[in-house]
């Protein structure tokens, strides 16, 4: 064991022993919040602990600018340091310690004692420590918190601004008064990635969009129910330039991400296909083959009434077991002959036959 590790182990051992005493449930059961607040240890913002640790690295750039969050509802509060928070919130700390946030903040705080841990997100803790029940004295991210939603998201964006969240302001989720903590719960590890509030991206989105999730149970669907794809493969819930929260500039570009063969350009193109894949397909799930919005040939006959064969009304008598079977109705119907309906690169393919 190195001297550095031994020092840390000693520090943590003493701290844990102290906190174990403070955190005994039997003790809690007999104490009020005010009692707890009076027992809090003094803040340690001197950096002495960090200075005692051997400095082996610089703070990671992503955490180098982390500072105590602003809390307008506790303007006079001052930081108290993580160990003060843990004095009461030991269980929260046990869960939080295994998150990526904790990993980064703890490491950064070791390198630079000015970098806070809990107070990076929750704001300065002194007022809350003195009056734990005081509304708004600590930045909270739950339903019962007095922290305004705008302040909640502003706090998260202090570090997470830009990138995928570049268009959060004015996005549909922002306008619908969603907070980051509606989808994320950084206090524990619930998901493989992203510190989500639920086990997966799809579970998280389904909290509100359960109707959409149901569509993925239909006969043809994108493979979300099978766990092979997520809502965020197509949508950016943090805001985008393309409705409905699409990650690319158009619907078609979103589809081309996985269906690049449809991109072309083709020698002969089908105009509505280039216009928008959703002219014929529904994106989540359909009772028809291949996510179609209506059964063929009626899907095609909504637009095609050209002279010749496209505009005839076919009845069940034209099914394979009918009196006069007709290839315009059986199986893939129109697509049996117009098979390259997304576009043909054949010189003899203007009607997508080849």
């Amino acid at each position: 064991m190195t001297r550095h590790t031994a020092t840390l182990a000693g520090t943590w051992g003493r701290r844990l022993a102290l906190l174990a005493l403070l955190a005994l449930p039997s003790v809690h059961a007999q104490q009020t919040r005010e009692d707890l607040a009076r027992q809090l240890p003094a803040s340690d913002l001197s950096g002495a602990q960090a200075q005692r640790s051997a400095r082996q690295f610089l703070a990671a750039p992503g955490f180098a600018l982390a500072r105590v969050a602003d809390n307008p509802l506790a303007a006079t509060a001052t930081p108290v340091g993580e160990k003060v928070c843990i004095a009461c919130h030991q269980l929260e700390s046990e869960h939080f310690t295994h998150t990526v946030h904790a990993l980064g903040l703890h490491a950064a705080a070791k390198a630079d004692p000015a970098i806070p841990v809990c107070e990076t997100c929750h704001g300065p803790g002194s007022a809350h420590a003195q009056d734990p029940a005081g509304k708004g004295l600590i930045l909270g991210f739950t339903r019962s918190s007095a922290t305004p939603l705008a302040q909640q998201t502003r706090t998260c964006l202090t570090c997470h601004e830009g990138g995928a969240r570049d268009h959060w302001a004015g996005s549909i989720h922002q306008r619908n008064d969603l907070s980051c903590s509606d989808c994320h719960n950084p206090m524990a590890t619930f998901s493989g990635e992203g510190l989500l509030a639920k086990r997966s991206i799809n579970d998280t989105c389904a909290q509100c969009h359960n109707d959409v999730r149901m569509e993925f149970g239909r006969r043809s669907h994108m493979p979300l129910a099978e766990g092979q794809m997520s809502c965020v493969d197509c949508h950016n819930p943090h805001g985008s330039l393309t409705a409905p929260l699409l990650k690319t500039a158009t619907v078609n570009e979103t589809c081309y991400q996985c269906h690049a063969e449809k991109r072309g350009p083709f020698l002969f193109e089908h105009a509505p296909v280039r216009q928008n894949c959703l002219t014929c397909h529904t994106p989540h799930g359909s009772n028809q083959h291949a996510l179609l919005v209506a059964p063929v040939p009626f899907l095609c006959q909504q637009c095609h009434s050209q002279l010749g064969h496209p505009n005839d009304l076919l009845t069940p008598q034209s099914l394979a077991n009918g009196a006069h079977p007709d290839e315009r109705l059986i199986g893939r119907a129109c697509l049996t002959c117009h098979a390259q309906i997304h576009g043909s690169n054949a010189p003899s393919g203007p009607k997508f036959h080849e």
Partner: protein
Amino acid sequence: MPSQSFARAALPLAVLMVLSAGSRADSGSGVDMEFGNALLTRTGGANETPDARGMSWLRPGQRRSPGGHLYSCPLEPPTLQEISGWDVDARVQLGWIGTYGDDDNALWNRYVRWDSGLVLGLLELALRRPADGSYASVRASHLSSDDAFFEAAFGRAGSYAVQAFLRELPNATSDSAISIWNGVGSNELTLLPSLAPGASSSGQVAATAAGVAPQRLQVVRSKTGLGFDAYLTPRWTAYAKLSNEQRSGARPFGGAFFYNFLFPENAGALETLRPVEDSTLNFNGGLRFIGARWRMDFAYDGSFYRDAYRRFRFESPFALTPTRPGATSATIYQGQFALEPDNDYHNVRSSFTRRLPWNGELSVSAAAGRMSQDDGLIAPIDCSGTFGVDIDGSGVPSTTNRFLHNCSDWNTTASLSRDSADLRIDTYSLDSRVTLQPSSRLNLRGGVRFNREDYRNTYLAYNPLTGDYGYITENGAQASIQAGALGTWNPLTSPSVITRVRSLPLDRETHAADIGADWRLAERRTLGLSLTTQRNEPTHRERRRVVEDSAKLSFVDRSLDWLTLRASYTRLDQHGDRYVSNPYGSAYSTSLPGFVAPGGGVPAFTVDAMRKYDLADRREHKLDLMATVAPADDMTLSAGLRGDWNDYGALIGRQAYDRTGFHLQWEWQPSPLTHASVHYGADRARLRMANVADVVFGPDGSLGGPDYPLNARWWAYDKQRNRTAGATLDHRFGPVRVDAGWNLVDARGLTSYRFDSPVALAYFEDGLGGARSGSFPLMRYRVDSLTLGLSFALSPRFSLRVFDYYERGRVDDWHYLGLDTNRVIDHRVYSDGGPRGYTTNLIGVLLDVRL
């Protein structure tokens, strides 16, 4: 072999991971955000133990998110082992699964491949070094060689991240494919030896098909990816992702040898089985700057699609017979498709955002892209000798035997105006938006947007060997049945033929603007209004300008502790300039100098009253209500109600499309040890459309005219109704966890129709009974599934999970009625029998070990 490729790819990836450094999924770009499989999502996955102590000692019960949903109970913190400064948490779930019943069914195997035998349910390995924030992780699952994933990441929190992955994703495309061809999966289908190309009867083909065993088809996506993102400084970050996806398999397709419905015992409609063998290389990378006032993002996306084959060939078994008495058809049987061309995609974009006073932001984003392909073209026809109709019996094309043609004039690329596609679409977009908060109670926003797609180059269908314009229709079958119906225009020999001679560039431009405001009526109550206008200007479409104007009113109320209510109403009006029924004239021979109108005039392209629904006038009303209720501290009730009504106001075409639905979900978390939920949802869709049959090939396209008489009108009405329901229960009795789940999906679709007279029908006799309406058989899809699992904590390190997953599917699709008994109907061959019902049972025994 997918398993071999998986293994081959694993080694270099592992080496790369060791050498380089990490990336995490980015919701802003790209796919592959999360990896999973059906075992993890449907059967409960690995054993995860909630922390019986809950989230906090300070408050009882669970907290709620700002929107009112209960947070989950955290899992028990892992017991870490320290190894050389690294905290290590590792677990593996290994075991056996068995499938019983109709386990080869395509619906059951949709996006999953269950193989009875040993499986790696889940491997999770996490290493963390608290000293500097470094971490590494591995996550993997392997259900079968076609259904597996492996992902690994390492990095340092707040510094860099590297991610690598491998994934096999199966998709069953048929479980009942009967092939009369050899070579399924390749680009060359040759008829089974019992069939003679171009010389077999329907009976012979049916007999051959009856003797073929059904086979299962699938397409497997095998994807490998590597990415990183890194903080260069606290302000600048760089990121890049590279992936390569290969698809391999086959699926039902088509094949045209002219209309069998018009020419009984002649022609051919063939459902072939095409190969899917391609790869796509995707790259995404960029730089970001985030400062106190400015944010900037510079990015590049590249995507490169490569198909293993340029052409797909197949043989038709059927002989062709000309309609002209006394003549004979040339023996043609070779069909072909051009498969999707290799294509390249590049896109560069940048965005600049500046903070403004009043807590505002101004952002400007610009992008330019290019989609291009220059694939070598295939010849117009794939035959040797002659095609067409031999009227003098000589078998030699001549001025007197003018309906017989030399294949050599059309079966090489010398018969094309150029031998490669050389096509390109350039795209441009510019977006600017601003948000302001002049007071704590008011948010303002607005934006403008411009998009443009420019097609570069067009294709002219011209044969320098013959001087003909146009193309050979349906693999030469039409010309071999209808003497002279070659499909080409020639100023000397066929000056009145109407045929397609050019590609159609679909350039378009879009301008959009929006403005909106949100008023905070109270601390937790907001009213919003958004106004949007969008002008689309397509070319070579029925309208040159289509305008969408919309207004949306929204309301959010969180003022009551127990209720979150979100409501919105949108009204949209789509309108445009004059609708032109035939904007495609320039692509047809009618536009060529020397074209001579046929005697009866140029036939109408379509009925004037047709309004294609993507361009038609449309009025939409949309309503959304969403409520989250907390009936008790440990419960959440979510409800949604929605409606979307679209009126197209078209005489011919889509007339209405309405969708309504609601859903309810109840969740109960009385303790960390118990979780239960129930959900129910129902929705329906109504689509109304109209069309009109033509009775003569004339120049009058008016509805009610001689070509499209009023009594030839018909209407279709498609009704879809869906119900979903489900319930879950998860409870721990000491060391034993019991979980159960039930799910139901029940969908029904009914397509009915009515018509003015039998003239509207494809078969006049169908209307002679007096009835003027009817319907197709019900389309149904119903899946019931039940899961029951037991997990036993054998020791702190070992737990055992036993589960049973039962699923029953029922499907009726009228498109495939009758194909269960006969796949060959006259000169039609159907390889796929359509979706089938199934009853399957999956059982598993999995040992969960914390290493």
